[in-house]
């Protein structure tokens, strides 16, 4: 684990090892028994209720720019929370909360646009916002708008992100890197050819289908958001105490994302997704889970991308077709190279 330092830095929010260090050293350790359940550091908490679990999750959303090809902060705030619930195996959201903190001077028209896309995402996910909160801060006291959503759902069986076992296969539900590159291109006004569009979408329907087909053979799930596929796989490998061998040629990457990644020197495996899931499946059930995923509109490009081995627990080994190497976890903010 890396050192924490004196002050919070940008890297502590980038989804990699620095962020895990911050959470572990400050929050998990410091909240003690009062923070029971935090220690699992999963996408959400599972509270035993009756013969199942009440799954609870919360997330705050900040993104620049607020509107980007394929979505905006509103859609992101709904989908992110729906997906965190879904990754725990809770695909029927009972209700969402929505809190916004707005900077004075923010355009009402933009606020309405954000609200409209929240509503549309809720309809897609079959979810309802049941309560909320609004605060306004002075100009310059925050950057535009911060949205927080929380979600609650019931699950008979919780799927942890720590359930991988040797022999399990790894499925990703579609192309990787779409969201991160779309936002990067919009943020830095990069003149890139081809359409870079965020994949932000609610995954509860897709996960429901996978669970119906795979049942208890689904061993682990995670959405590869910040830090991308690489961070998600590292976390799953570490928590499951397995090695993951990733077959690079099998990872779906759209050609325009591939082009942008080559140009900027940023690996699509390190870049955020907001509409994809990584699913660990016991080998026997892989084909039937893959089949139902591919039959779903959000899983058409689903692919088996690797498997779990007993060697090198916690590591992700990338087979490039030309040789093998360790896959790295992204560090800090991704910056394009210069030559």
């Amino acid at each position, binding site marked *: 684990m890396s050192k924490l330092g004196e002050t919070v830095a940008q890297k502590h929010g980038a989804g990699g090892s620095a962020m895990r260090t911050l959470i572990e050293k400050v929050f998990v350790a410091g909240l003690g028994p009062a923070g029971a359940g935090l220690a699992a550091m999963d996408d959400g908490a599972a509270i035993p209720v009756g013969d199942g679990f009440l799954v609870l999750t919360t997330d705050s959303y900040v993104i620049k720019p607020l509107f980007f090809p394929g979505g905006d902060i509103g859609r992101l705030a709904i989908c992110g929370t729906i997906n965190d619930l879904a990754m725990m195996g809770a695909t029927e959201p009972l209700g969402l909360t929505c809190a916004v903190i707005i900077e004075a001077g923010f355009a009402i028209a933009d606020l309405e646009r954000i609200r409209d896309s929240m509503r549309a995402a809720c309809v897609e996910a079959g979810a309802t916002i049941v309560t909320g909160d609004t605060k306004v801060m002075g100009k310059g006291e925050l950057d535009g708008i911060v949205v927080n959503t929380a979600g609650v759902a019931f699950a008979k069986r919780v799927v942890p992100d720590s359930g991988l076992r040797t022999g399990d296969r790894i499925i990703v539900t579609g192309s990787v890197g779409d969201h991160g590159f779309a936002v990067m291109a919009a943020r*830095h006004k990069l003149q890139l050819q081809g359409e870079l569009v965020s994949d932000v979408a609610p995954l509860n329907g897709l996960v429901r289908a996978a669970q119906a087909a795979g049942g208890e053979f689904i061993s682990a799930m995670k959405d590869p958001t910040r830090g991308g596929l690489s961070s998600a796989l590292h976390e799953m490998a570490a928590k499951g105490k397995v090695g993951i061998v990733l077959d690079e040629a099998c990872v779906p990457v759209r050609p325009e994302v591939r082009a942008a990644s080559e140009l900027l020197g940023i690996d699509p495996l390190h870049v955020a997704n907001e509409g994809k899931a990584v699913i660990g499946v016991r080998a026997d059930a892989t084909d039937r889970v893959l089949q139902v995923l591919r039959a779903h509109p959000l899983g058409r*490009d689903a692919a088996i991308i690797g498997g779990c081995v007993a060697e090198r627990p916690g590591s992700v080994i990338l087979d490039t077709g030309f*040789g*093998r*190497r360790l896959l790295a976890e992204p560090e800090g903010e991704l910056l394009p*190279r210069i030559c």
Partner: protein
Amino acid sequence: MSAASSGVAELKFRDPGRARELTTALARLVQGLHRAPVTLMHVCGTHEQAIARFGLRSSLPPGLRVIMGPGCPVCVTDLGEVDEGVALALQGVRIATYGDMVKLPGSSKSLADAQAEGARVEVVYSATQAVELARASEEPVVFFASGFETTAVTTAAILLAKPPANFSVLSAHKYVPPAMEAVACLPETRVEGFLAAGHAAVITGYGLFEDFARRHHTPVVVAGFEPLDILAALVKLLEMIRDRDYGAANAYPRCVTREGNRHAQASLWRVFESADGPWRGIGVIPNGNLQLRKEWAALDARRRFRIDVSGLQQKARSELSRRCLCGKIMVGLVEPTDCPLFGRECVPESPVGACMVSSEGTCKIWYQYGGRPDLGGGT
């Protein structure tokens, strides 16, 4: 999910089958030389990226060492040059620079540190973007320009295109051929052949290396950046060593010519002239720096501003940085894993040396791609 073809047969530079044929040829050639290891050097972070990223070293014959030389422009940016950028930023001047330069440590501060203290440092992706920043405001904007001849040409182009009066350049541009000269003259390095960077040779032409190869009895092959480009160039290089053919060859003919881009060369030398200058960790490289010619004084930040770096340079080198092996790594004397700090005290999150900062740096690349572990199952 292959890229759409435009009627032209898709060029396959990433065909593992052809890669195996080339690695078999490499093994045969190395064996035929009857001396191992044979050491070849490339001088480009993008080559190292490709070699590491594709796990190529796991498929090279054991008697072949391919090492990286001074091929990372950010890594060789001298402490003093970073100090100039930091000093300007702390004086309140708006700085535009490439991403990797922001984290690069100076004598006591990086541009990122200056930023944390309130200085305005903007990351740009092209020289043109830096000019656009200047056009969009009245205040002075200094483009802290780094990179080898590839990016120096783009800096030259914007200066020739009459940038606004509030724009100027702080050049940390470097020129690779003199650094190859310096490495070839080091008695400790036993480099038998060089791979030259394809993108730089697009501009300079591969003919530039002919004289160098003859004088040092060391062949040079220009290589592209796909795995097959690199493997094919290594095969060519070993064949030239076997045949005692001390010349320059082109294994990247789809982009590179013998003469290069004459127009770009003319632009480069109209704006820049070579000058002796320090390369971080290596020392003074004769003619290794590209500085603005006198005619461009009005756009030269060094002539336009009084840059006072004295406040930054008092700090003595830390115990850690004295143990850093970046200098030896950059001339190919040792490998990152030979450094006691690598992956322990020195990681990308808190780099000790410049090679761990830039995505073109050997240490960062090795760290990022797991160095050279024996993972088995390679091709």
